[in-house]
């Protein structure tokens, strides 16, 4: 004869189990957690991508000196002088003949006599962390070194970084939307359960249960279901991410979708978030319905 419930965790049992709705809630929580795992993976992957593109390319720039052979050296000198007095430039140097030759070797072979060809002279510019004022530098170059073309990579880097940032934002928005949807689903389910259990609530009040006790009984039920469902969905989602093809250079962004290292701990926050959302939503519903059932 098991008479009393010793741990108050079981007090949730005063709410009758409602098989079908309970399963629906668990399923919905699982589905949303599963989707949230992917939203999180997307968000993290695009964040990584944006950071990588930003870092790798932001620190260097190139200046090409396109000039007739006899002016090339003079213009290169002039450009280097300008660079020396440009704020944000850490280091600048003209590539020597061998380096330029190495760069061109794949196209023209190693025998190319670069000295006597009108090949642009390349100047490598390494920026300081703060970067330099590209527009200002361009103006000064245009005035003094007519053959100089500054290529600071921003033109093609910026849209990529922006796209990655946008993707990360979308991932974040998706997670917020999933949480809000979860709150809505739990609220609907809790409202239905509270309304269906008006008689139970009446009996509980008759035996001296306060609103807080009654609300807690419902909150426990729903928080438990949301947590269980979300935990299952999250684990499935993580397995699915794990089974994605590994990142490779050929696949680029697509195969980069996944978690790296400690990031694997982050999806485990999803069930917690689901539980917190369910806790809040049920508590709020219970408060409202118990007030109406006065």
């Amino acid at each position, binding site marked *: *004869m*098991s*008479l*009393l*419930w*010793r741990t*108050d965790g079981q*007090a949730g*049992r*005063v709410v*009758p*189990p409602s098989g079908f709705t309970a399963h629906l809630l668990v399923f919905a929580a699982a589905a949303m957690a599963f989707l949230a795992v992917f939203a999180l993976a997307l968000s993290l992957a695009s964040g990584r991508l944006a950071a990588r593109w930003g870092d790798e390319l932001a620190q260097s720039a190139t200046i090409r000196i396109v000039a007739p052979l006899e002016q090339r050296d003079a213009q290169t000198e002039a450009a280097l002088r300008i660079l020396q007095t440009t704020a944000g430039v850490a280091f600048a140097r003209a590539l020597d003949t061998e380096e330029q030759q190495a760069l061109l070797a794949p196209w023209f072979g190693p025998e190319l006599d670069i000295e006597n060809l009108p090949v642009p002279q390349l100047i490598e510019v390494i920026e300081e962390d703060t970067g330099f004022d590209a527009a200002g530098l361009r103006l000064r170059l245009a005035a003094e070194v007519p053959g100089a073309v500054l290529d600071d990579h921003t033109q093609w880097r910026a849209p990529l970084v922006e796209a990655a940032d946008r993707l990360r934002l979308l991932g974040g928005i998706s997670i917020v939307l999933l949480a809000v949807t979860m709150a809505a689903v739990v609220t609907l389910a809790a409202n239905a359960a509270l309304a269906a259990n008006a008689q*139970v609530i*009446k*009996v*509980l*009040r*008759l*035996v*001296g*249960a*306060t*609103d*807080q*006790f009654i609300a807690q009984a419902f909150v426990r039920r729903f928080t438990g279901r949301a947590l269980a469902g979300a935990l299952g969905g999250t684990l499935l989602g993580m397995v699915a991410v794990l089974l994605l093809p590994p990142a490779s250079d050929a696949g680029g962004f697509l195969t980069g979708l996944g978690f790296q290292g400690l990031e694997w701990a982050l999806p485990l926050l999803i069930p917690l978030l689901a539980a917190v959302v369910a806790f809040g939503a049920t508590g709020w519903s219970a408060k409202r319905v*118990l007030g109406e059932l*006065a």
Partner: protein
Amino acid sequence: MIELENVAYSYSGGALFSDISLRLAPGSFHFLTGPSGAGKTTFLKLCYGALLPTAGQVTIFDKDLAALTRDDIAILRRRMGVVHQDCQFLDHLTLSENLALPLIASDRAAEDAQQDLEDLMAWVDLTHRADALPPELSGGERQRAALARGVIMSPDVIIADEPTGNVDWEMSQRLLRLLVELNKMGKTVLVATHDLSLIRAAKSQVQARVLRIASNRVQLAGADL
């Protein structure tokens, strides 16, 4: 203990009670009688705060009911054992779990309460039905269980609505003895019944007074029953 002052009550239809003033002293034993539909259940509900009077004032344990919140009333109920005419169980819980509900609701489901619960179940002869669900019980079994649940918190006041309506004479005597016993321990008892033989049996054991509902009033009945 329970005081009514110029209390009136009416459902949407007509006035059921008007101008009732009454005081149930601590330790007293009262019966409430009247024909079916006279308002016995309604009167009891006014006494335990399930209904608020449409006029007048009800005071329980020196507290004006109208001034209490829902939770205040719930907590007051822990000092009142209420036995409902229609029993009011949770059908998904076993009988023993139902009996323990008041303890659970007030966070007193401790080890030492276990013994009280077993004693009470034995007293109302339901030990063998402990794991049954309420819908599986007979009317009489339900009533005995309801009475047991009503007294499990060792309340100061016991209010019972037809507690012997469905049980045989022998069992009704046993339930009556439980109520008398509790009254002798100093508890205030109010029992609604239309069973005059129960009242007669009680009068030989305890100083019980009889309230009768007639023409919108609740009045002390004479000694002649």
